[in-house]
């Protein structure tokens, strides 16, 4: 059996470095395209500038500085796939058109202000939904110390499930509520 994922705390930095390093590499490839190029290699609908804006949108919605761009690009890819539907694409395009110039390069606070202005548009929920798929990506799980499926190691039944070592001094002891 592999070691229990609880050990992630100790391994977290190492794993992150590894993931971020690997992801940064693939990202560079995407953005070495000329600025005015057609679609990035694996996007169908959006060209490189639009992809860059969508990437900035996804990063603004769920900003985790320690994560590289690659998992966010997966969210952009999901938007690109959904944009095969003309209605969906029209909603997204209308929203993007309302973003101020320089959105991609602005700081988080400024980008949040810009996105706030879109909150009541039909595109906002779609963009949030796509960006929220970030957390479905196993590549980001180590950052959140989330181990994912437990079937491969047989579940938690023979492992630690009760390790609340941080509880303040309680009038109640753990033993009073466990083993009922």
């Amino acid at each position, binding site marked *: 059996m592999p070691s229990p994922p*609880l050990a992630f705390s100790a391994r977290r930095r190492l794993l992150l470095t590894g993931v971020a390093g690997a992801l940064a590499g693939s990202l560079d490839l995407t953005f070495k395209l000329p600025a005015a190029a057609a679609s990035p290699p694996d996007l169908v609908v959006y060209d490189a500038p639009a992809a860059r804006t969508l990437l900035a949108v996804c990063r*603004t*919605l*769920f*900003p*985790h500085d320690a994560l590289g761009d690659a998992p966010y690009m997966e969210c952009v890819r999901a938007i690109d796939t959904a944009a095969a539907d003309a209605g969906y694409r029209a909603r997204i395009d209308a929203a993007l058109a309302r973003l101020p110039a320089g959105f991609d390069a602005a700081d*988080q*606070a400024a980008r*949040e202000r810009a*996105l706030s202005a879109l909150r009541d548009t039909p595109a906002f929920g779609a963009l*949030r939904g796509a*960006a*929220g798929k*970030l*957390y*479905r990506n196993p590549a980001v*799980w180590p950052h*959140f*110390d*989330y*181990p*994912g*499926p*437990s*079937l491969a190691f*047989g*579940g*938690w*039944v023979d*492992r630690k*499930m*009760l*390790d*609340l*070592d*941080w*509880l*303040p001094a*309680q*009038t*109640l002891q*753990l033993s*009073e*509520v*466990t*083993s*009922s």
Partner: protein
Amino acid sequence: MSARFDLNDDSVVVVIGSGAGGGTLSAALTAAGVDVVCLEAGGQVAIEQDLPTMYGRVKWADTRLSEGDLNPALPVFIAKAVGGTSIVWGGVALRIQPHEFAARTNYGEVAGAALADWPMSYADMEPWYAQAEQRLGVTGTHGNPFLPDHNNATLLKLGARELGYAQVSNGHMAINAVDHDGRPACRQFGFCAGGCVIGAKWSSLHAELPKARASGRFELRERAMAVTVEHDDAGRASGVVYVDADGKRQRQRARVVCLAANGIETPRLLLLSASGRFPDGLANGSGLVGHHYMTDLLGRAIAIMPGRVDNYRGTTYSSLVADDMRHDPARGFVGGYLFVPRGIHLPTYVNEPRSDGWGAEYAEVMEAYPNMASAALIGEDLPVHANRITLDGETLDQYGNPVPVIHKRYHDNDRALMAHGLERAADIYRALGATQVFTRASNTAIHNLGTCRLSNDPAAGVCNAYGATHEVPNLFVSDGSQFVTSGAAPPTLTIAALALRQADHIVGQLRAGTI
């Protein structure tokens, strides 16, 4: 061994739906020697430990319209799959309480609500509850051990005890703590809500349909969407028209028809089956088919704790805080509610603290995932006449039938109960030092109840105390549509107990030749 029955075989019982109600009923009927054809709208699904994938795989995605307080985009989440919604239920297996069976008597008149007593008492139901608990292997009952402790459950119990709660336990779960009924003990995988990969959690899929199949008297037709229940000149149910997996219309003749299609599709099917003799819908002389729609009140609390919880570990909902299940109008509402822990996985956590959260502040809440504790509130939802299922006048589904419209507005009592419960839930976590607590009521229903309510009075309910419709004696309602009131408990154990009781009744009637 699966059986095969001819479409013109009018000796069979046709059960519509293969979930908690239809599956249990089918297993009990076939065990007693009755031939059963079960029509299931969904197909077989594979279970894996990926909640978004599983939700997509089982989701009943046919168009539904919503009017009122439920989410217009997703008013209801139920499953369309062999095994029904029992695949993804949580496993909390509690009885409706004695005082709740006589809600009208014990709560008194509540303005705007259509409270009634059930036509049977708790004492009438007790043996069937006992049989259901034994069958499902409910922990902490009949000598079955409890499930083990884990952080998320322990925090809920500990915080509750800090506040003075006393009815705090590891709960009564239809999840095996030890091997039971040919199904293995729980491995504490933590993915209960997407279906159990080993069948340690009771479900129709894992526990009842296999029994029915083994009887040799059971045929399950998958991807068979029932569209009309037909009747003969005597006004007795004579068969069911359904659309099969190839899109062809078929007619299965029947001696008895049992509807276990969940609290929306069951009344919809009766309304779709209107005829010259039954112009307002089959068995709808009372005019109450579809009315008194209840969802149970569902709330959630997400707390960021000072240390790690890792609440993805272990059984999702095991443990129980039951003190507030009592009826105590001094709290400002009738009826009661309970708390259970609720484990949350990272992929779905993004919509939990807030369904619309985003930005740097929300990302901090996401970063706190390992320190997150969570509980669910389930409470009694009052029956209201205007809350109902109707057929839409314009929109048709893929079978050419009017889609259902779900009308649901919460009663003031519901709001008062929810506000009280969510505040208590927040207090539980604050008592243990929570740094942030998010609470909210759910606006997507998962329990759909009351739309063909039981009553001994044909003017006051659709079915008699055994679920037989008053107007069509060989037509039964076999799911949560029967509920007169919701009680504070989740409905599944009661649905199973009612199915066992109804099967016994049907067998008796068949033997007596009265249906």
